[in-house]
């Protein structure tokens, strides 16, 4: 760990507008718990940012099991936003995260505009939250989530309302389960989003042939993992054509090369999701791999490769 620090002469810091990260490696919401689950495996100080599990106004039980199913090169999940609620997060989880020199981003979820606003307000006055990521893209809940994110008007409206209530930078996390993701991106940018992250999981399902039943109790779930990376790259590319706010690339990033591909396209940062499940040290492995890549190619600053894609 220390050897890495001394070895590193490259600049890894990136700016997402007002939000400055020491490096572009973030954790994807829902794959890194509240941070503490990974503290034995990862020096949290080294991460660009931790995006915590989606928080709602009241605690949520989540969906009945079975909740996950492996698929070819990926996995389906239908957790249903099980979380301890925003108050318990602030009281019980945030103090732990404050011990680290790391940007903490709270992913927020509501069933109504009012709920998004209340959660945003509570987190804005809590100490130790550096930005909000609005989840308008969860495919596994009956109300809220993707229903806000699949229409440019509602996506813009929730963004505007949250922006009005917080001084924190606001990232909007988009769903790929739409016809024109770039139109949604433009709408939330116009509504004041400071950055856009994409993609959340793709709606999918899996059938148990023996039982003639769905593998997931929820029937449908969200697909993640290496299988979705080409779709994520395509969507990040499409969004980058149409917005000027910083874009955060998410979707199937398992290796350093995967992460660099998103940066080359023009994403300012990336989020690691499913890879954390397979290798709890994935974030650091990818970060170190990026540093090595820059050194080997004699590039002094990560920003020099961002957006260098040549179509």
């Amino acid at each position, binding site marked *: 760990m220390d050897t890495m620090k001394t070895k590193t002469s490259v600049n890894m810091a990136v700016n997402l507008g007002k939000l400055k990260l020491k490096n572009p490696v973030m954790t994807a919401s829902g794959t890194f718990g509240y941070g503490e689950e990974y503290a034995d495996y990862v020096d949290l100080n080294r991460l660009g940012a931790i995006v915590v599990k989606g928080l709602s106004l009241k605690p949520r*039980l989540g969906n009945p*099991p*079975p*909740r*996950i199913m492996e698929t070819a*090169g990926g996995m389906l999940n239908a957790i249903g936003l*099980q979380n301890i609620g925003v108050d318990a997060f602030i009281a019980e989880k945030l103090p732990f995260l404050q011990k680290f020199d790391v940007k903490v981003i709270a992913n927020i979820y509501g069933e109504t505009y009012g709920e998004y606003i209340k959660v945003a307000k509570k987190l804005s006055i809590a100490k130790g939250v550096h930005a909000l990521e609005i989840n308008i893209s969860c495919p596994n809940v009956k109300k809220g989530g993707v229903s806000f994110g699949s229409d440019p008007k509602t996506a813009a409206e929730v963004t505007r309302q949250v922006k009005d209530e917080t001084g924190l930078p606001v990232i909007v996390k988009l769903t790929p389960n739409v016809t024109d993701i770039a139109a949604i991106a433009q709408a939330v940018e116009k509504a004041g989003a400071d950055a856009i992250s994409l993609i959340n999981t793709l709606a999918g399902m899996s059938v148990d042939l023996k039982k003639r039943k769905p593998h997931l109790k929820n029937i449908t779930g969200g697909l993640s993992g290496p299988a979705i990376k080409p779709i994520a790259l395509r969507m990040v590319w499409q969004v980058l054509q149409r917005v000027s706010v910083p874009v955060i690339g998410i979707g199937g990033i398992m290796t350093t090369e995967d992460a660099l591909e998103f940066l080359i396209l023009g994403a300012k940062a990336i989020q690691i999701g499913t890879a954390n499940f*397979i290798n*709890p040290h994935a974030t650091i492995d990818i970060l170190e791999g990026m540093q090595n890549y820059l050194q080997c190619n004699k590039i002094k600053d990560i920003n020099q490769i961002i957006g260098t894609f040549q179509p």
Partner: protein
Amino acid sequence: MKVILPASFGEPQPGQFVMIRISGLYEPLLARPISIYSFSRGGDSCAIELLYSVVGKGTQILAGLISGSQVEIHGPLGHGFAIDEAGKNVIFIAGGMGIAPLSLLTEHLCRDKCFAQSAMTFYLGAKTAKAVVGLDKLQKLCYNINVCTDDGTLGKKGLVTQVFQKDIKKYLPENTAVYACGPKEMLQSLAKILSGSKFPSQVSLEERMACGIGACLGCAVAIRNDKGALAYQRVCADGPVFNLGEIIWE
């Protein structure tokens, strides 16, 4: 299968598991949770043994490994069985691969906790004689073993829970602890048999997992909490061992 590990691998508690995976493959993507069957330490390494039956892609690949292959092991994970004081009778009820954590527990109680072998009774069930594993080792640890198979090819014919139920009057709840592991249906019928009785009963559950460390919330089990309300706990991090009475079955 036996896996040689570096000495830094912590000594597992009976009931703990590992996540096992073939390095570098995206297919299958996820590691598989498998209960630890045995643990030994020697020189500058240690070794664990895992029992599994081939049920899908992951276990099929494990079964195809040749001696000397490399695997990724993450563990020991989860909470093992809580152990009552010596002097109690102990009943083990295992179905199929459920023998793995209970065999390790038997070993631990005999060797480390000085439980009398005469105080332990093992009920071991499997589909057929061929599916019975670990019996040789178990016979060295425990005298009272009741083997049964669904088709009667070894031991008594019938379900392990039925065989236990016939004996239940032999035991007093106040000085007997029950430990069980096996398929969901077996544990569910055990829950019915023991409901209303006062036997302290712990079971080790199995569930599909992605991370094994409490982050993905994929391995949820419905539990009745202190207030009597339904809550989901994580089999990986809150378990895999739970008190039988607190589990809500569908």
